[in-house]
């Protein structure tokens, strides 16, 4: 046992704790691995620390995960890029462990190191590592290998490249589905590094194997490969090889595969180009929109606008619009909801006439949907709605829907609609708002649910910001102040809350003349909760009103509250008094 000088004590502890029994301490040491490495110096890091870590491979997964991450940025501490290869052995071991997240991190770190390594080092060290992992006894090593090919391949010699391709092809046919899944996931990345002739020959045949895999879980990953490979291939090859696969996938027996196609459709269209999209993918998409599995229709419905944008209006009207009409009365509320969230985007694509003629009825029926989410999704896209159908039609059809949602029995629905009110107000203008929505906003202040009352108070503030203090003086303040005598103390408290939010927007003058007297009156309330909220509101008003008003009106009121029999009232009153004092001091 050696003794260490006093200044080195902390670093010595850090090193010792690499092997502590307490996992938190080990984790801490691993997280400071760069400090340890700098203390040891580059040479001893290479010769001692790294081999030490390589042996430290049966630690807990949390520690291994941290180690995999730290080693990824360790090149500077081992002496720079020329020594990068010493980092490979510990990471290779981590690539074989059972826990997926550790392996993934190790692969990520290896890729990071590999992309910085010198070409001949890659050939000497990195490629043999990939080959070892690919031939690993356990599937864990083979899974990791799949994610390293795209780093290893570019620097390999012709012969090695051929070998690497054939190894990858074997991984695509591995017995273990986990390995085939990893091969499918990484195929796109690997393919991007492969030369065009080999891409067409070798990679495409691997891809075909994967697309015909028995396991759904492998096939559905191959769907993503379609888009990735499609971008690499020349357009005629893409049409010849990728397009049929996509069309097949769109009719796969497994709904999960069809779901993936529906989800990836836009990327797939991009990959094959506009012409094949029109001829082949439109029918495929129409099938997906009419799929008998709701999950697939949900995914497909959510892409309807994006898809229509690549098409010309005639095709969209002819093929897609009829499906959209069907979906608007789909038996699954989630399908309708997905449709409602995107349908308004179709308007610019279809043009004004088609929109009014065809889309508007669908839109209106969704606005009357029995399921609140569907209505909410339409309302949330209000800006687009306005452009399309104009304010008159909108107010006719929208208002009943809003009123209904505003009184929905689920408070979350009411909450959602309150949050849209400022947006609605700005879209629809002052006039419309005054007529129709003003009363609703006041009504929410007396909701049974606290969150609604709170949101309503906030809403008033945002409206005041939107339309300005003058408007608020006319349309908000009088109504709010009317409610100060509500018999229920919780509603009176909401008013206090609204006042504290409105005051900064309204400015000093209105606050002093209109709001402050109400607050002062409320300080005489019989409910302590009101009184200490008065203290809180007064505290917030200090910065808004003049110093003289503070001294003349606010302070005496607070002093009185500070004598209150209730302890909480005294507490908040004193808090407010203290902040008056500190404002005085600073000014």
């Amino acid at each position, binding site marked *: *046992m*050696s*003794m*260490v*000088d006093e*200044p*080195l*004590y*902390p*670093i*010595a*502890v*850090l*090193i*010792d*704790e*690499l*092997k502590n*029994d*307490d996992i938190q*301490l080990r984790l*801490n040491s691993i997280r*400071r691995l*760069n*400090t340890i490495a*700098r*203390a*040891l*110096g*580059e*040479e*001893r*890091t290479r010769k*001692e*620390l790294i081999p*030490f870590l390589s*042996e430290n491979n*049966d630690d807990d997964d949390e520690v291994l995960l941290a180690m995999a991450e730290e080693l990824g940025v360790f090149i500077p501490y081992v002496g720079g890029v020329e020594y990068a290869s010493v980092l490979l052995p510990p990471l290779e071991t981590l690539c074989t462990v*059972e*826990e*997926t997240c550790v392996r993934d991190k190790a692969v990520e770190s290896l890729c990071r190191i590999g992309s910085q390594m010198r070409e001949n080092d890659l050939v000497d060290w990195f490629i043999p590592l990939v080959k070892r992992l690919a031939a690993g006894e*356990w*599937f*864990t090593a083979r899974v990791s290998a799949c994610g390293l090919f795209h780093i290893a391949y570019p620097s390999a010699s012709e012969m090695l490249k051929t070998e690497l391709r054939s190894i990858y092809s074997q991984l695509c046919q591995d017995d*273990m*589905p*986990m390995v085939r*899944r990893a091969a499918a996931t990484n195929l796109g990345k690997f393919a991007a590094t492969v030369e065009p002739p080999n891409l067409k020959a070798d990679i495409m045949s691997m891809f075909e194997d994967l697309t015909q895999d*028995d*396991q*759904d*879980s492998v096939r559905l990953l191959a769907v993503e490969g379609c888009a990735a490979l499609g971008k690499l291939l020349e357009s005629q090859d893409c049409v010849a090889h990728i397009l049929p696969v996509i069309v097949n996938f769109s009719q796969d*027996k*497994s*709904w*999960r595969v069809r779901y993936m196609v529906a989800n990836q459709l836009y990327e797939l269209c991009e990959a094959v180009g506009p012409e094949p999209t029109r001829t082949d993918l439109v029918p495929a998409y129409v099938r997906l929109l009419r799929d*008998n*599995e*709701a*999950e697939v229709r949900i995914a497909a419905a959510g892409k309807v606008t994006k898809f229509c944008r690549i098409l010309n209006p005639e095709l969209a009207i002819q093929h897609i619009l009829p499906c959209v009409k069907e979906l608007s009365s789909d038996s699954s509320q989630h399908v309708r909801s997905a449709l409602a969230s995107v349908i308004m985007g179709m308007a610019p694509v279809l043009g004004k006439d088609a929109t009014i003629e065809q889309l508007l009825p669908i839109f209106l029926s969704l606005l009357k949907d029995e399921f609140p989410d569907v209505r909410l999704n339409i309302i949330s896209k209000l800006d687009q709605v306005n452009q399309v159908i104009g304010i008159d039609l909108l107010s006719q059809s929208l208002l009943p829907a809003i009123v209904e949602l505003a009184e929905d029995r689920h408070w979350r629905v009411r909450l959602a609609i309150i949050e849209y009110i400022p947006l609605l107000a700005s879209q629809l203008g002052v006039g419309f708002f005054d007529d129709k929505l003003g009363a609703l906003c006041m009504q929410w202040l007396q909701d049974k649910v606290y969150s609604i009352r709170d949101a309503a108070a906030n809403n008033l503030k945002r409206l005041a910001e939107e339309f300005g203090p003058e408007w608020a003086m006319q349309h908000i303040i009088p109504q709010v102040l009317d409610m100060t005598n509500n018999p229920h103390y919780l509603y009176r408290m909401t008013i206090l809350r609204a006042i504290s939010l409105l005051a900064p927007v309204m400015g000093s003058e209105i606050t002093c003349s209109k709001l402050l007297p109400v607050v002062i009156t409320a300080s005489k309330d019989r409910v302590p909760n009101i009184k200490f909220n008065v203290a809180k509101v007064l505290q917030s008003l200090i910065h808004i009103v003049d110093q003289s008003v503070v001294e003349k009106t606010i302070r005496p009121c607070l002093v009185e509250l500070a004598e209150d029999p209730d302890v909480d009232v005294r507490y908040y009153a004193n808090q407010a008094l203290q902040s008056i004092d500190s404002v005085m001091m600073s000014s």
Partner: protein
Amino acid sequence: MNGGDGGEVTAAPPAGPPPPLEWKFSQVFGERTAGEEVQEVDIISAIEFDKTGDHLATGDRGGRVVLFERTDMKEHGGSRRDIERMDYPVSRHPEFRYKTEFQSHEPEFDYLKSLEIEEKINKIRWCQTANGALFLLSTNDKTIKFWKVQEKKVKKISEMNIDPSKVVGNGSASSSTVSSSPKPYLANGAYPDRSYSCLNNDMTFPPGGIPSLRLPVVTSTETSLVARCRRVYAHAHDYHINSISNNSDGETFISADDLRINLWNLEISNQSFNIVDVKPANMEDLTEVITSAEFHPTHCNMLAYSSSKGSIRLIDLRQSALCDSHSKLFEEQEAPGSRSFFTEIIASISDIKFAKDGRYILSRDYMTLKLWDINMDSGPVATFQVHEYLRPKLCDLYENDSIFDKFECCLSGDGLRVATGSYSNLFRVFGCATGSTEAATLEASKNPMRRQVQTPTRPSRSLSSSITRVVRRGAESPGVDANGNSFDFTTKLLHLAWHPVENSIACAAANSLYMYYA
């Protein structure tokens, strides 16, 4: 032992049924001495071989999982095995030894429902091994856990920078041994501010490093087995979990309770997808519950579940996200006029198992074992009477609740034989190859053949078309055993498992695990 080995049988052309097996006692774990009282917590409640047959796991009512490992062929591969077989005329049979055990589940209390949750292990399933670490799923009524059992090095650290005794003197009251005490030195805790304040990244070190610092040296090469719970899949079942089953895709599994089946990803413990829901809108309309569920051994999209009405439903996960409609239904039409009060109770299927190739499903109801071909839904291809002699006693069995006992069943790896348990610690093995008349009754004791009654059995009349071989046999034993004693309903053999590649059976009699080979 000629022809007794499973491998040889499969290799032989289907000239005729394989000869009956002669079962021999192999091992017993936890044998009861005469007069010893069985502790409730020690009663075995689940048995499962892993895919290779090199490991065996049992779970008990006390929430423990015990692992056994095979010892007879550990150090040699296939070729060596062939050589040995030539050397010794008597082929070796699987022998196991205790490997490790761990507490998988603890008793819990559900405060919301005021329900006690037993720790009893309902099912164990092995998962894919990796790097020599074993993985398994275990479940009680409510919670499924994913366990990793692994050899860990026992650390013995010999060289340190800081003398631990000095640190101990600095405030920790711990003992002076370095590795064994839980917190050998509390330097970090003792000087938290100091140790980190000067460890900023801008702390500079000489370019060559500090030579006096050294890395700890680990000397020990000893290893010990450690079981760690990696994931807990909880709060997904309102009713009691009766089955869990791994998917062949290696990433998902299902769990089934009385009314629902959920699909999980092994890596994600906080969400599952409900794929089957048989709960009626009004619970008073409930007529049927799920009793068992299992994935197809190779097709990742197929699974089967059985019901309390005696039907088996095959569902295809590809068809739809919520698989309330089955793609195939297997049930047997009841013979007209035979209906009684007990018909429905004894029709309830207690267990189903896919054969290894996935073509056949074995089901166990109270009175019979049935073998179904998944390509034929008109009726079972074979029916084996397990304890037909109990039929006159159904009333007594109902009175003492025995009629609700859930017997498990199993198939041999080659699919040629099936086995299931019965009362008085008996279990029965039937040959299901074409033309086989094999039907053996064995007792879970050191002398399994003691109670066997040799009665010639023959296939009964064919019930349906000539292609279907419908056999009814095994109805040979009278209501008393060979010694003339009446059957003992308290000693029942519910759980048993067939080795995946050899003719070897592990079965549980109360707290004892008996193993037989042939």
